[in-house]
């Protein structure tokens, strides 16, 4: 669980590779003193917000609400964290929870009250069983609640109310976990500010983008110049998001699936399940195209969220940062989906590493990696899809999850071995030092993506069957 997603600062001198002799598609405007000065003026702020609004209009369905919140947070930097809490509550209680399949305002309020109680208990009683292991207690409690709810008689009020509550609790689970991690800190934020990090208005998934309150404290702009730099970097990132989206939708997908006729991966997988035949090279073409498309989609999505976070005055690291340049499996895992990796590191890797196998350094690292990349990863994805557990029951859902569990085991072994190998500064040149390792790393993740299957419709053997197709081992 290593390596860097580091957009905020130029890389170390030896790691920097010139790209077309220093040419940049989007110039480093945050390094131009005139631009930074201009961005600190009132007219500069409105100009930035105006340009950002155009990008949001292209990428975000609720761009009007988001730009108003960003304008408020820009104009009231001294109340940034309070505005964040206010905006996040408006977003949650005005936009998300009233408009789900059933309005979930009451369960959402109950979850926040429970989160406040847990935060208070973890800060007030740090030496209690719960205070010493707040995140493990939270996750165990949540998992047991889901298990119990799956045994409730179907269709009754208690069943519906329980699943409504668990749906909201699941959506906030990892945000609350970050709060509980912060509860032990001497410089922790009060709960009122922690709430601002619970699915913040700049967007995200069940993975907390820009982590929790502790991280926000560290990356918050503390003066007008820092705010200007953060916003300019946010603007650049949004521009990247728009450019990548245009490339994907207007060039890559039409060429790959239209002109070249490469089948969509999910359709080809379905064909494999139906025992249909296709040439092995078509399988590879489809898999590689799907891998690139997934990378692009994650970049577009993550860039948009982090761009808004930066626009709000928090200079967060990018979510996806040049994954194809990775020279090791561990580095790719870090560069591909940074905030998910960080979640696993904070909630599983560190606690395991600091407590177990302390006398065996290699086992310690391997065990912690397994706890994060295998157990934590599987836990996150299994409990993310609560609707499926509600529908099928706990154990059937778990059985349906076998392909993804296999994926997490192989992933953890890969990352573990990658980390245990000695890390050195590359000295073997561009081809042997960069291109060849990158090729193997991309190959590993591309093949492994066959098993990155969370739909739960088909068993593990269907993934192996598709893999066999790729090597022309089936008819």
């Amino acid at each position, binding site marked *: *669980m*290593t*390596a*860097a*997603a*580091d*957009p*905020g*600062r130029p*890389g*170390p*001198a*030896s*790691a920097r590779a010139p790209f077309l002799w220093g040419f940049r598609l989007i110039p480093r405007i945050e390094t131009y003193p005139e631009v930074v000065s201009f961005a600190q003026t009132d007219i500069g702020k409105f100009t930035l917000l105006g340009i950002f609004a155009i990008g949001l209009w292209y990428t975000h369905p609720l761009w009007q609400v988001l730009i108003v919140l960003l304008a408020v947070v820009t104009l009231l930097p001294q109340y940034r964290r309070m505005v964040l809490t206010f905006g996040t509550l408006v977003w949650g209680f005005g936009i998300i929870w009233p408009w789900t399949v059933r309005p979930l305002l009451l369960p959402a309020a109950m979850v926040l009250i429970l989160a406040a109680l847990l935060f208070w208990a973890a800060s007030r009683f740090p030496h209690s069983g719960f205070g*010493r292991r707040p995140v493990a207690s939270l996750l165990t409690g949540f998992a047991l609640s889901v298990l119990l709810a799956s045994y409730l008689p179907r269709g009754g009020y208690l069943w519906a109310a329980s699943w409504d509550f668990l749906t909201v609790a699941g959506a906030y689970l990892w945000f609350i976990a970050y709060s509980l*991690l*912060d509860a*032990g*800190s001497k*410089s922790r934020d009060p709960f009122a500010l922690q709430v601002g990090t619970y699915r913040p208005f700049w967007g995200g998934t069940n993975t907390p983008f820009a982590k929790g309150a*502790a*991280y926000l404290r*560290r*990356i918050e702009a503390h003066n007008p110049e820092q705010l200007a730099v953060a916003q300019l970097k946010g603007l650049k990132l949004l521009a990247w998001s728009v450019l990548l989206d245009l490339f994907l939708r207007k060039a890559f997908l039409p060429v790959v699936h239209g002109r070249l006729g490469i089948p969509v991966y999910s359709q080809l997988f379905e064909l494999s399940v139906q025992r249909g035949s296709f040439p092995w090279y078509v399988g590879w073409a489809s898999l590689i195209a799907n891998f690139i498309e997934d990378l692009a989609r994650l970049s577009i999505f993550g860039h948009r969220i982090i761009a808004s976070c930066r626009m709000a005055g928090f200079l967060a*690291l990018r979510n996806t940062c040049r994954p194809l340049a990775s020279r090791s499996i*561990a580095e790719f895992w*870090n560069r591909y989906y940074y905030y998910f*990796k*960080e979640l696993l*590191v*904070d909630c599983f*890797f*560190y*606690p395991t*590493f*600091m*407590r177990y196998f*302390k006398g065996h*350094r290699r086992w310690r*690292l391997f065990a*912690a990696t397994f706890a994060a990349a295998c157990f934590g990863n599987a836990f996150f994805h299994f409990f993310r899809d609560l609707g499926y557990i509600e529908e099928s029951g706990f154990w059937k859902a778990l059985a349906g999850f076998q392909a993804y569990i296999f994926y997490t085991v192989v992933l953890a072994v890969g990352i573990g071995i990658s*980390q245990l190998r000695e*890390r*050195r*500064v590359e000295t073997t040149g561009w081809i042997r030092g960069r291109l060849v390792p990158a090729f193997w790393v991309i190959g590993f993740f591309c093949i492994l993506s066959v098993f990155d299957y969370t739909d739960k419709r088909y068993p593990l053997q269907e993934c192996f069957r598709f893999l066999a197709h790729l090597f022309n081992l089936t008819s």
Partner: protein
Amino acid sequence: MERKAVIREFVRELLARKGDTEPFSDEASLLLSGRLQSVDAVEIAVFLEEEFGVDFAERGFDQEMIDTLDAISALVEDSAKTP
């Protein structure tokens, strides 16, 4: 050698192993800035355990505790005071 100097030397070596030879101040963020990563945090934690007897199993761990040279020094001082 003074504690802080020992820690500084260890962090400098850690950065140098990654090809990062740029200077860093006592207050400069090392982890949350992305300059060092989680596996480097682990290296720092092991170093602090072995060199100064800091017990993270007892006090818990988050990256903020070792994000700057100042924070690491404060942690070591605090650990030395705690019986």
